[in-house]
């Protein structure tokens, strides 16, 4: 076991995947020589050479589009989008091609690519370095959208995303990249390139995880708001004697409907928390699923604590925009006191 942060965990996963399967290639802006602006791809160039770890021109449609072509040929590209909002020039390639290649080829040639996107606010960056664009991809049939919140999940999920034949949008919560260390096993959970062993893809790419036990309120969240939500749950326990169950969704498409039903039904009250804007966000879908399926088990309508339907602000105001422990606490009390 080794204690690693999320950056190191992702880096370890990428090393493991590239070692196991020489079809895996890494491409993006500044991923090779500098190892990425967040250093997630550090060391890969030295280890695997400049054929497989490539600093590309600064053009996201070119990055995603050429990654699709490489996948059509038979490689397994992992493309880095340097910051969340930089994905927009590559949006057409993702939506009209990556997401549709399997469908368009009788299921025989999916665009087997992973698009890593460091996303979200709280890191005091200039405009368009802090967006949470996950809903755009959740709303695009043909994509899988996942988001780890712990180092252990980050490593397992990047391996599973590379192994998965379908295109995976891999949202990386950059605010908690280095937030803490976690012991992870030295050996990978499975070897990339050996098919889908023991349901690993299913386990790591479509299942939610209970991050804190509790029976009085279910709070669904993912990414950088998971630790904040756990803090809010501790505060609820201290100050309100309420035990909130925190569910880390991990997979945003497909959603783990059974985990959502179970937690909402057992806790009878539910709240969804995310950084992305509220309207048609992931929270809207989770709320809708709960109301459609277990409404009669509920004591209150499902609440939401989210970013707002406004551009992510200049960073002097980002703490006003982002869900905080206090906002989550207040949102939880509203559901509890309904």
């Amino acid at each position: 076991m080794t204690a690693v942060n999320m950056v190191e965990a992702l880096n370890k996963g990428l090393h493991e995947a590239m070692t196991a399967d020489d079809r895996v290639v890494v491409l993006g802006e500044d991923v090779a020589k500098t190892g990425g602006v967040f250093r997630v791809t550090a060391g890969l160039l030295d280890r695997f050479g400049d054929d497989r770890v490539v600093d590309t021109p600064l053009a996201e449609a070119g990055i995603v589009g050429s990654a699709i072509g490489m996948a059509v040929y038979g490689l397994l590209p992992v493309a880095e989008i340097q910051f969340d909002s930089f994905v927009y020039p590559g949006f057409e390639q993702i939506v009209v091609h990556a997401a549709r290649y399997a469908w368009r080829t009788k299921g025989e040639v999916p665009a087997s690519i992973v698009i890593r996107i460091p996303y979200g606010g709280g890191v005091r960056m200039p405009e368009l370095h802090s967006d949470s664009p996950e809903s755009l991809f959740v709303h695009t049939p043909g994509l899988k959208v996942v988001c780890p919140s712990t180092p252990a999940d980050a490593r397992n999920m990047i391996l599973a995303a590379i192994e998965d034949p379908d295109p995976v949008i891999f949202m990386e919560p950059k605010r908690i990249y280095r937030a803490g260390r976690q012991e992870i096993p030295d050996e990978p959970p499975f070897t990339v390139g050996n098919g889908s062993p023991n349901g690993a893809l299913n386990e790591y790419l479509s299942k939610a995880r209970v991050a804190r036990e509790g029976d009085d309120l279910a709070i669904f969240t993912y990414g950088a708001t998971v630790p904040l939500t756990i803090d809010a749950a501790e505060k609820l326990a201290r100050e309100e004697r309420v035990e909130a169950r925190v569910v880390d969704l991990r997979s945003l498409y497909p959603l783990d409907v059974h985990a959502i039903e179970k937690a909402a039904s057992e806790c009878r009250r539910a709240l969804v928390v995310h950084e992305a804007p509220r309207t048609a966000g992931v929270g809207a879908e989770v709320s809708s699923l709960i109301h459609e399926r277990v409404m009669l088990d509920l004591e209150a309508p499902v609440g939401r604590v989210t970013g707002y339907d406004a551009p992510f602000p200049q960073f002097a105001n980002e703490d006003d925009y982002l869900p905080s422990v206090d906002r989550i606490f207040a949102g939880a009390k509203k559901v509890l006191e309904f």
Partner: protein
Amino acid sequence: MSEIVRVIGNGADLADGEVPNELAEKDLIELFRWLVLLRTFDERAVALQRQGRIGTYALYWGEEATQAGALYACEDADWVFPSYRQNAIGILRGVPASTVLAWWRGYGGTHGFWNPRDHRVGPITVPIATHLPHAVGVAWAAKIRKDRASSLAWFGDGATSEGDFHEAMNFASVLKTSTVFFCVNNQWAISTPISKQMASETIAQKAVAYGMPGVRVDGFDPIACWKVTRDALERGRQGGGPTLIEAYCYRIMPHGTADDPRLYRDEAESEHWRALEPVGRMAEFLRRRSILDDAQEEQIRAEAKQLVAQAVTDMEAIAHPGQEILFDHVYASGRPWNFDEALDELHQVERPAEVKPLGPPTTPGAGEEGKTI
């Protein structure tokens, strides 16, 4: 302006050029066979649309040289990526013609799609220029794997305004991929003439900005199209990187079966260009050299007609796809839980009546009676 490469003259004041040594007589006949097959498919597809047996169709009548000539220059291992204008190119590589027709009939799944790896032919790409980065990616992957495979993508003059064209050109030249960017400059993007598409003198000159060769070729001359493509592929295979080819021609026909060019251009101009169309021109060239006689030509045309007729029969034998096809192959890894729920929901109500192609559209403003074109 760089010179336009041409081999086939007009049998009068414009003399024929040298046929490249690699093209034997049997190659010229085979190339002619390809031209005829493409032409036959296109004409039949238009008729099928008129009869309401397929949907809106994008014609390529007159552009067969840019397709057959370029493809004939490719090796079997080379990948080609068509836009919708080259929709039938796969039939020259083994994609069933009935599959292409089924695509235009609105069928998906196993009926209207194919596996690109089977024949190294990409899917029909509807959005403009977005398949160019895929062609670059394929050649890049082949380079990484040290395989002898190049890529070629066709696109129109309008596509050169799209960002993906420029990103693909830049990636290919920086990464030195063996990629041929084959631009069919037919001078029209629906109603937009090339003069409103760009202020550059030629499309070929755009290659200069990317540090790659730019070549102009007569887009109605299949042998010239073969020659410039073969040269580009040879250079690419030897590590020389990509080439931009501008095949200068003219869109003699409407953009598609729903388009009426009388609304935006003088059709006398397209009549002028029609005299240069490649199938007749190639036939005359082969006759001048006594490579082709009437009987042979008749046989080639009859075979093409038979192949396409069989394809129509095969297409029409396909049963209307079931509702399950909505969810087939969206994910290669299997269906997410909500697909089964969606199908259950669909099955709870009576199925809508079978969708038929709409048949020939009437174009408002096309004439006193809103005539079809």
